[in-house]
């Protein structure tokens, strides 16, 4: 039973400082590599992922967009409201639109670990060492844009994927 105020109602908590990543990925899917100091919580349903975001602070939500069916679009909304950045990969379904994905960082599956490291690093949770940087493989193929996509670019990407 909850014995105190939920974490997201406490003014002093900064969710980005928590070393915890909630991941909504399909069963059997490849789990992204996380830095040793970061705890990964894997969920296969949006409900479970929402519960994890609500029960304790997290520094990021990683989402396979294939799991975001019509019933689960609200998960992204909850992540936004509790201030947890969202990194997403996978196919964009017709359920999702530009407004839904406006605050989501879209990456390709190969770039998930790198994107997570960037998010964690930006939040001050994790400082990549020089060795980490040297070991990081250079992904093959086209790279995702470094900056956030504009709304028009995002809508074009969604249209392309549908």
């Amino acid at each position, binding site marked *: *039973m*909850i*014995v105190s105020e*939920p974490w*997201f*109602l406490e003014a002093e908590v900064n969710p980005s400082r928590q070393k915890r990543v909630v991941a909504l990925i399909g069963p059997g899917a490849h789990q992204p590599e996380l830095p040793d100091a970061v705890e990964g919580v894997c969920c*296969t*349903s*949006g*409900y*479970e992922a*929402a*519960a*994890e975001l*609500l*029960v304790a602070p997290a520094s990021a939500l990683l989402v396979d967009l294939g799991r975001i*069916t019509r*019933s689960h679009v*609200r*998960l992204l*909304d*909850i992540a936004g409201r509790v201030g947890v950045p969202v990194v997403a990969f996978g196919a964009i379904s017709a359920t999702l639109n530009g407004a839904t994905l406006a605050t989501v960082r879209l990456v390709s599956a190969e770039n998930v670990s790198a994107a997570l490291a960037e998010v964690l690093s930006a939040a001050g949770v994790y400082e990549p060492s020089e060795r980490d940087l040297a070991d990081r493989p250079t992904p093959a193929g086209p790279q995702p844009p470094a900056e956030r996509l504009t709304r028009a670019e995002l809508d074009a990407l969604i249209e392309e994927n549908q």
Partner: protein
Amino acid sequence: MNQGDEKTLLLSDKHVAAELASLMPSEDFVHRADAYDALEELARRGYRAVILTHPYPEFAALVQAIRRLQPAAATFAMCSPGGEANLRLLGLKELDDYFIYPPSRAELERALHPGRPGVPPAGAAPERADLAPQEIVQLVEAANSVADLAEQVQRLVGKWTGLNVRWAGANEDPGGGEELLLLDGDPPSVLVTDKPGQLAPGLRRKLQTLQILLGPVAGQARRTETLHRLAITDYLTGAYNRRYFYRFTDQLLGRAQSQRSRVTLLLFDIDDFKRYNDAYSHAAGDQILREATALMRQVTREHDIVARIGGDEFAVLFWDAEPPRRPDSQHPQEAFALAGRFVDALAKHEFDSLGPEAKGVLTISGGLATFPWDGNTCRELLRHADGALHQAKESGKNAIYLVGRGPINQALQ
């Protein structure tokens, strides 16, 4: 104990919430219809119990999420009588128990306030408001179409209540009447009685049970209707398809023989259709077929049958829904007039894909055959109508010929 710890969170639709609130008016229920709203609420404060209706999508995961947020709250599922087997199959250890909807007050009391004085012991007779098995069978059998189902529900509720009940649009003003049931659809309808406040509490609970059953049964009825429509219509034009045309015509002729009524078959195709396909593209040709079908539907009566039986070949059945054939009756003038109206409508129509300058260019040739004079079966009528159509083609096209009587305009003079 924290603020909210005396409350019970109810995740269900509004009908179930209203039912439980009326069963236990002193209970502090907090209602949420959306699963994510419920999860957010559970994260905000402590709850003594959570009741959620089955099925919600990904029910097992939802129960686990609720447990994660409220590990100490008693968690109950509530399902329809028909959903019990599926719920048990899930084998959810996270659930404390489940209720069959509608639960009795005693069941709820026992679950939410175990040990409270005055709560009836387990095993007391349940206060169910279940439908009789035969009534459930009747509902399932009526699920061939939404109209059949609605009729069966109206009959059943009329029998239970002894009241006159009728279906009305969901947005219609009930005008002082009482809404008893909602049938989801496009548009949705409500079953209303003009005498509100006449139902005993037990009967209301029975109606709420019926409301829960109605959701999946109406869904099945809609799926069956869709499949039936796909099986009997032509995908391109929406007209009936060849298979349906043959089956319907034979049935219709059997009826016409016993009732001595008249049936007239028009067989027609679009003159030089291939030329339009070649000159304007197949997409333009398809559009011509769709518009020609729509025109034919506009000029025919509701009960007449328009079917596409080949590429650009259509058959239209004109038949008398009501009056019997008199011994001295002539060829059905009305059917001939309708065929003539179609030719006129075609000449005046501006086909989108051909442009305004092509108005009046597109023509048809057709043959008309009538039961009983020109044949007694679908094949005989088709053969004779086809012969008349060929005569029309040979005479220069753009004409409808009656079997053995030449062009329709001459025959009618």
